[in-house]
C-alpha cells in the first residue's frame, strides 16, 4: 500500500506585524535591509485569545471543506505551543472538527522538522493498514513564547498552521526518508522555563543579547549563529543521504523545498549544495518563519504557482529545534 499528499490548506491569523511597525517600535534597524537579508517583510500573529488549536482548527476546516471528513481515520498534530499540558490538543480538535470517534488522534512535539516527521508517521500508519486517510496538522504560535522586547526573534517568527491530507495510494508517492536527531544542541533553541524541570518564573531575570534584545528564561531563546552552524553540518548531509537512499542524484529532483528558516540561511545552503535557484523555493516574505508549517505552506504555494506539477519529484527537508532534522522525496 502506497501513500500520497492529497491536499494542503493553510491558515494565517488576521493580525499582521510589518517591518515598518517593528522599526518604529524599536528604532534600531532599517526595514528594507532586513527584508533584503532575511527575506521577511511581515508576519502574522495569533491574537491574545487565539491558540495553536484555533489555528489548527481553521486550517483543517479549510482543507476539509471539499473532502468527506468521515473518511479521516487519523489526526496528527505537530505543535510546540499546545492549548493545554493535557488533554492532547488533537483530541480536542477531533471533537471540534466533528471527526469520527473511532480514529486515532495525538500530538507530537517537534519544530521545524515536524512536517517531514508527520509525513513519515502518516506513511507508516497507511503502509501498516492502521489508517487510510490521515489529517496531519502543523500549527504554531511561537509569538507567545517571545519576549516583547526581543526584536531578533519577533522579526524571524510568524504564527500559522497548515493542514495536509495524506491518503493511501496504488503506488508509493512518499518515497524514502532520512531522519536525524542531535540533542546536544538543545540549549541553542529553547524555552527553558514552563515545564517541570524549570517551572515558569514570574520574576525571571532579564538577559540582554549583543544586539540589545531582551529575553528571560520564560521566553524563546535562539542562538542564531550556532543554529546556522548546525544547518551547515546537517542539511547538506541529510540531503545527500536522502538522495542516496532514493537512488537519485541532485539532477533527478525537480524541485527542492527546505524549511524556510530565513532567506540568508537557506540561500547559503542552496549555494553550498549547488542547487540551481530556479529549482529551489525561497519565499517567506509575507509569513516569516512559521516553524513546522513553512514546508506545507511552500508546497501549497509551489503547486498554486505552477513551480511543481503532478509527476514532479520534490525533495523536502526540515531542520531545527532539538536538534532534529528530516528529508524525504515526494512525487507530486
Amino acid at each position, binding site marked *: 500500500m502506497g501513500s500520497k499528499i492529497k491536499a494542503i490548506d493553510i491558515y494565517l491569523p488576521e493580525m499582521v506585524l510589518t517591518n515598518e511597525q517593528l522599526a518604529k517600535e524599536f528604532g534600531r534597524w532599517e526595514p528594507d535591509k532586513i527584508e533584503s*537579508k*532575511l527575506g521577511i517583510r511581515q508576519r502574522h500573529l495569533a491574537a491574545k485569545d487565539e491558540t495553536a488549536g484555533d489555528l489548527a482548527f481553521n486550517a483543517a476546516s479549510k482543507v476539509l471543506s471539499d473532502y468527506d471528513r468521515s473518511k479521516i481515520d487519523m489526526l496528527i498534530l505537530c505543535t510546540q505551543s499546545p492549548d493545554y499540558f493535557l488533554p492532547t490538543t488533537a483530541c480536542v480538535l477531533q471533537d471540534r472538527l466533528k471527526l469520527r470517534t473511532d480514529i486515532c488522534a495525538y500530538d507530537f512535539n517537534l519544530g521545524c522538522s515536524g512536517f517531514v516527521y508527520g509525513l513519515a508517521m502518516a506513511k507508516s500508519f497507511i503502509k501498516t493498514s492502521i489508517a487510510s486517510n490521515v489529517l496531519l496538522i502543523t500549527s504554531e504560535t511561537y509569538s507567545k513564547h517571545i519576549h516583547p522586547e526581543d526584536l*531578533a526573534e519577533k522579526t524571524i517568527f510568524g504564527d500559522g498552521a497548515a493542514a495536509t491530507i495524506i491518503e493511501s495510494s496504488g503506488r508509493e508517492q512518499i518515497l524514502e526518508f532520512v531522519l536525524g536527531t542531535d540533542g546536544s544542541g538543545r540549549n541553542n533553541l529553547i524555552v527553558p522555563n514552563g515545564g517541570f524541570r524549570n517551572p515558569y518564573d514570574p520574576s525571571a531575570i532579564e538577559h540582554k*543579547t*549583543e*544586539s540589545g534584545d531582551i529575553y528571560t528564561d520564560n521566553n524563546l531563546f535562539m*542562538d*542564531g*549563529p*550556532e543554529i*546556522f*552552524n548546525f544547518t*551547515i*553540518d546537517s542539511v547538506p548531509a541529510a540531503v545527500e543521504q536522502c538522495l542516496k537512499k532514493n537512488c537519485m542524484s541532485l539532477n533527478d529532483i525537480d524541485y527542492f523545498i527546505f524549511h524556510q528558516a530565513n532567506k*540568508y*540561511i537557506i540561500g*547559503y545552503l542552496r549555494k*553550498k549544495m549547488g542547487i540551481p535557484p530556479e529549482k529551489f523555493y525561497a519565499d517567506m516574505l509575507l509569513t516569516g518563519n512559521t516553524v513546522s508549517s513553512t514546508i506545507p505552506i511552500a508546497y501549497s504555494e509551489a503547486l498554486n504557482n505552477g513551480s511543481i506539477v503532478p509527476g514532479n519529484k520534490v525533495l523536502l527537508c526540515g531542520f531545527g529545534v532539538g536538534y532534529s532534522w528530516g528529508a524525504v522525496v515526494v512525487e507530486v
Partner: protein
Amino acid sequence: MKKNEFVEQLSEYCEFENKGFNLDTQFKSIEGYDSLALMSIIAFVDEKFSMKLTALQLRELKDFKSLISLIGSDKFEND
C-alpha cells in the same frame, strides 16, 4: 588570500556600511555587528577556508587580527 584582502572581502561579505577597516578594527565598534554579521562570518570562513567556527569563539573575538589567528595565520599569504 592576503590579510588586508581578507579584511576587505569579509567587510563586504558582511555588508558593513562603513569602509576602511584594518586588522586592528574592533568588531564591537562596527555599526551593524550583530548576530547576522556573526552568521556572515561563519559563512565566509566556511566558504573560503572550509572551517567551522563556533558562536562562542566568534563572540570572544576582538578584532580582525584575532579572527585571522583563529583561522590560522599560515593560511594567509604575506602582505
